[in-house]
């Protein structure tokens, strides 16, 4: 064990300062602002303390409740799909075959593409008159062409699909790391005992992979909760608020409508939901951080 050294403070200070200024303080300030009525477009109203009024409005705002529902639906469906598809990809990438390195790089491509770019790409593919999507479904019969981004149900599916396409490779990486920790001896022993490929998957791979699957699921849940870019570019929250996720609604309230107080109340709500997810994550993996720490 090395002795505590006062110098540690100086090493940590620059990062601590920035994180405190741009992450910790803003969370506290959001909480404070949520007790005020402040509207950017009406500066003469000033900053009026209104107590819990914003939260009362929040509870009675049907758009917020719908937005929460849309967000939870999006998170649940896309995280589940991403982990399932990611698991399939990981099983595939764990096999040995020629050109595996190249295939792994190819799988990473959607992850590396800026979300804004992939969103525009899907808009082009989902176009209602000349999109590849419609052509693949209906050929040249333009009378049956759909406008996926202009119809509530389809728009939601399109956003989920775009997210799944972009991020299932990330889930695959986490699951692949888990797969590689399963000792080969287990499979060899199973083969000696005459187990089929399906039995090996059910009895060895899946049970031992459970921690990695859970980790991937939690990671994707936390990240899917942040969805913004896709919605901003593809649907702007529409049609009829059907893709109006919380991040987008909060952005609209604060930055488009200038409702600082009310928007901050949304920020606080979002913060507590994500804090709960973060604590769940820490409970899953972080306990060991506190015990042994990053320190050796």
């Amino acid at each position, binding site marked *: *064990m090395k002795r*505590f*050294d006062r*110098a*540690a403070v100086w*090493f940590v200070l*620059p*990062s601590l300062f*920035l*994180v405190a*200024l*741009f*992450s910790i*303080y*803003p*969370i506290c300030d959001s909480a404070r*602002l949520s007790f005020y009525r402040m509207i950017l477009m009406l500066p003469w109203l000033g900053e009026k303390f209104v107590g819990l009024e914003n939260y009362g409005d929040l509870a009675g705002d049907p758009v917020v409740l719908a937005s929460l529902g849309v967000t939870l639906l999006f998170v649940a469906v896309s995280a589940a799909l991403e982990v399932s598809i990611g698991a*399939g990809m990981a099983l595939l990438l764990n096999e040995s*075959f020629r050109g595996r390195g190249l*295939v*792994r*790089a*190819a799988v*990473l491509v*959607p*992850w590396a593409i800026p*979300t*804004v*770019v992939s969103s525009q790409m899907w808009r*082009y*593919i989902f176009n209602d*008159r*000349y999109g*590849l999507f419609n*052509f693949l479904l209906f*050929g040249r019969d333009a009378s049956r062409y759909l406008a996926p981004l202009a119809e509530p149900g389809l728009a939601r599916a399109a956003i989920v699909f775009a997210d799944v396409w972009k991020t299932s490779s*990330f889930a695959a990486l*986490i699951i692949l790391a888990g797969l590689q920790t399963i000792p080969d001896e287990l499979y060899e022993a199973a083969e000696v005992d005459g187990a089929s490929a399906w039995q090996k998957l059910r009895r060895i791979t899946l049970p031992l992979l459970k921690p990695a699957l859970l*980790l991937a699921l939690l990671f994707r849940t*936390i990240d899917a909760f*942040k969805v*913004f870019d896709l919605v901003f570019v593809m649907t702007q929250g529409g049609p009829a608020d059907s893709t109006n996720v*919380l991040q987008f609604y909060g952005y609209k309230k*604060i*930055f488009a409508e200038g409702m600082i107080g009310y*928007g901050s109340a*949304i*920020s*606080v709500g979002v913060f507590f939901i*994500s804090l709960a997810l*973060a604590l769940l994550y820490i409970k*899953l*993996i972080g306990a*060991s*951080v*506190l015990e042994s*720490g*990053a*320190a*050796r």
Partner: protein
Amino acid sequence: MKKFLLPLGVAAVVVYSLLPFLWFVLASWKSPAQLTAIPPVVVPEFHWGFYRSAIVNYGLLGYIKNSAIVAGATTVVSIAIGALAAYALTRFHAVWLRWYLLVLLCVSMFPQIAVAGPVWRILNALGWLNRYPGIIVAYISFSLPLAIWILSTFFKELPYEIEEAALVDGCTRTQVLRLIVLPLAAPGIFTAAILVFIYAWNEFFFALIILTSPPLQTLPVGIALFPGEYTIPWGELAAASTIATLPLIALTLLFQQRIVRGLSAGAAKG
């Protein structure tokens, strides 16, 4: 059966991963008529008009410049500050340092909207909206958790004995960091730098609220707000998107193994 299924699965995964974007890249080389043709044209004319138009009419080079400056500066400073913190986190023993790591972990998971309003107000008060320092300092602080987490996992793997010997011989902590840890951890630092660069190059939310003046906007903002509400200039948009993605594809192909290692260091460590 396996011999048959494996290539099929691999082919499916590759097509699924590459085809949609390839379709968009092909669009950038089509002629205006080919862009909206039904049935779709697969092989484009390979005409470069949309690239020229994106540069001349849509100021693509300006966006590229802004993105390069912002992502470059973010990467350099974030890694420098992150390396200091990661060194302390892996070499000193104190309970508060472990809590710090947990706080960083938490902070990296909060949606942007949880902090966006006050971040805007701070930068507004500093007069740093629509200026490079404003967006860069925000990106540095938001990328620090990622940088510190990845650097810590790499620093942890270095043999401590060399450093101990150097400390006994009278080196200061800063000298140890500079002369021993950083050179030895160069691969890890490079990995963290790639990931921070990709974050900063791709980030959209804060760029959108901090950079409202077009001459300062980065590529993601430019591409998201590409002008044309009713008739979308798909050719120029595809050309700009291809150029914005090119450096990332290059990084991914060149450093696939490093990126995978860095990501799993950031995610699966426990």
